[in-house]
């Protein structure tokens, strides 16, 4: 656990307990219960799903209509709770005349750092996000990617345990994305909890340890992508197998009750299977028994996008 500063706090890092939030007659979040722990949690949902509301509740910008949001046992909108949380909002209209360095330093000062320490912390985090050399320019002259880095720097400046990142890779160039991805992974590996919202679902495939799928204010599913995918019995998993004797392999697989359909595509077989864990175990047995040479094995529709589509269109 990182610096708790001088604030006494206990309890889970982040907990949403039966949280509902409505704006007049419109319900934005409906009975959401969620716990966030160390690692990267992706937040995925279509427009209007309640992602922004959930983030605003967590960062203390809003109070719930019902239920409670707590960070280390403190109500999320209290000033004390902010010591544990760093927020990187999607807003990037700063004070255009101010330099990036001054902006981050002021944010550190607002956390209660004395001037000298604030300056030291500022230099550290600017180095971390790769902005140390460019931080003296006015914020108004920054590209979208540079603004994202500065926002990240101000979120990290007080060494929080929880990072709430709203579209943090939006507008960042490919090299920057790779750098920031590594940074996120390293921070998560160091025990920090990161809640990451992104509309680019491919980001989630590589970044998120767990994903929370939101739709119409409710949590549709949460857990690792593999866990969620395995639960989607209505949507057989598509697996592409590149092997020797594909026709024979397809015929052999069709004899299994776990395989619903098989299709030949060149030297590959695309099968639709249910109960993926059992299927992969039986596939291994078949391959050994029949001496097939398997060159490729790829799950086609277990990406965040595919799971997201299944969940959103799911009608129980």
């Amino acid at each position: 656990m990182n610096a708790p500063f001088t604030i006494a706090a206990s309890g889970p890092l982040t907990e949403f307990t039966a949280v509902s939030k409505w704006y007049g007659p419109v319900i934005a979040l409906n009975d959401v219960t969620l716990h966030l722990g160390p690692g990267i949690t992706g937040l995925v949902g279509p427009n209007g799903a309640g992602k922004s509301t959930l983030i605003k509740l967590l960062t203390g910008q809003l109070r719930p209509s019902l239920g409670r949001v707590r960070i280390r046992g403190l109500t999320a909108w209290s000033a004390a709770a902010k010591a544990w949380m760093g927020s990187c909002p999607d807003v990037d209209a700063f004070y255009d005349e101010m330099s990036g360095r001054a902006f981050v330093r002021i944010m550190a000062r607002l956390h209660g750092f004395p001037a000298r320490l604030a300056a030291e912390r500022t230099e550290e985090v600017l180095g971390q996000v790769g902005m140390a050399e460019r931080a003296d320019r006015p914020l108004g002259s920054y590209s979208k990617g540079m603004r994202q880095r500065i926002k990240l720097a101000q979120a990290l400046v007080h060494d929080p345990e929880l990072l709430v990142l709203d579209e943090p890779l939006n507008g960042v160039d490919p090299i920057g994305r790779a750098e920031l991805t590594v940074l996120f992974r390293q921070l998560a590996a160091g025990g920090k909890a990161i809640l990451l919202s992104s509309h680019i679902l491919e980001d989630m495939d590589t970044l998120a340890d767990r994903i929370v799928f939101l739709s119409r204010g409710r949590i549709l599913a949460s857990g690792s992508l593999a866990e969620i995918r395995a639960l989607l019995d209505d949507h057989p998993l598509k697996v592409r197998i590149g092997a020797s004797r594909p026709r024979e392999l397809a015929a052999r697989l069709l004899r299994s009750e776990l395989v619903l359909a098989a299709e030949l595509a060149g030297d590959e077989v695309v099968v639709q299977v249910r109960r993926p864990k059992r299927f992969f175990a039986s596939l291994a047995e078949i391959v050994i028994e029949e001496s097939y040479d398997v060159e490729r094995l790829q799950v086609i529709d277990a990406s965040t996008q595919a799971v997201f589509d299944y969940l959103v269109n799911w009608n129980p």
Partner: protein
Amino acid sequence: MNDDTHIELAGYCAWSGRLRPGWLSTWPIARTGLDLVFRRKLFWLLLGLGLLHFLFLFATIYLKAQIRVQNPSVNRFVDTMLKSVAGAGRTYRDFMTAQGTVTMLLLAFAGEILVGNDYRQGGLVFYLSRRVARRHYVVGKLLSIALLVELTTVLPALILYLEYGLLTESMSYFAENTRILWGILGYGLVMAVTLSLLLFALAAWLPRTVPLVMAWSCIFLLLPAFGAILRSAYGDRRWLLMALWRDMRLIGSWCFGALESGRDSPLLVGSIAVVLAVCAASAVAILPRVRAIKVVA
């Protein structure tokens, strides 16, 4: 690879230490506001305009002192000719009131930078994601506005007061005129509190410059004009209470002990009531703009 190694690789250095209390964060908020204001040339121009009046009085006081020293026989003539720099409470009250014109202009344009931008561009999110409560944010912003007011009114008045005292033959001026010192501070406080609350409230609801300047003009130009018309029509001086700047001036006169008993005294209570009402209404208007939505149950 353990957790610490990962953190080390990230270039991350955990910090542990004692943080300063939230109230001290109001100063960085205020300083940031002033810093942003003084990056604009327009504000230096307005300050320069305000400084012209100050420099004129400063030079006049100096000139008067020099004439007195070189030719004491013309003392009475000089006092008659330069009534406006007599060194009495009224001199400072009138000076601070005159500075108000520049202060009004300065605040009308600074409102967007100091407060409006936080609402229009979402800067409030950054402040409120820090370890500062909403009250710290509000106080910090009010402080930045109040400092602008003090900079154009109280500070130059204090300098003139010092100059006047130092250029008299003895230091007795300070001892005999302590009321003036309290008057400067009191009038300054009334202006700072009233104007900062009013500007914050207006800029929080009208964050863009044009609507803000229009609303500001309505309060400080249109309402007084309307009050004057009503006064002429009905012959009741209480209509003049609609002029907020005049109300503050009246309270300032009382602070300086320069109240004109026949003309001003009857309106003093009304002026205090108007100023308090404006402050209370502004505070009420500010609250919903900085508060998270209420808990329903």
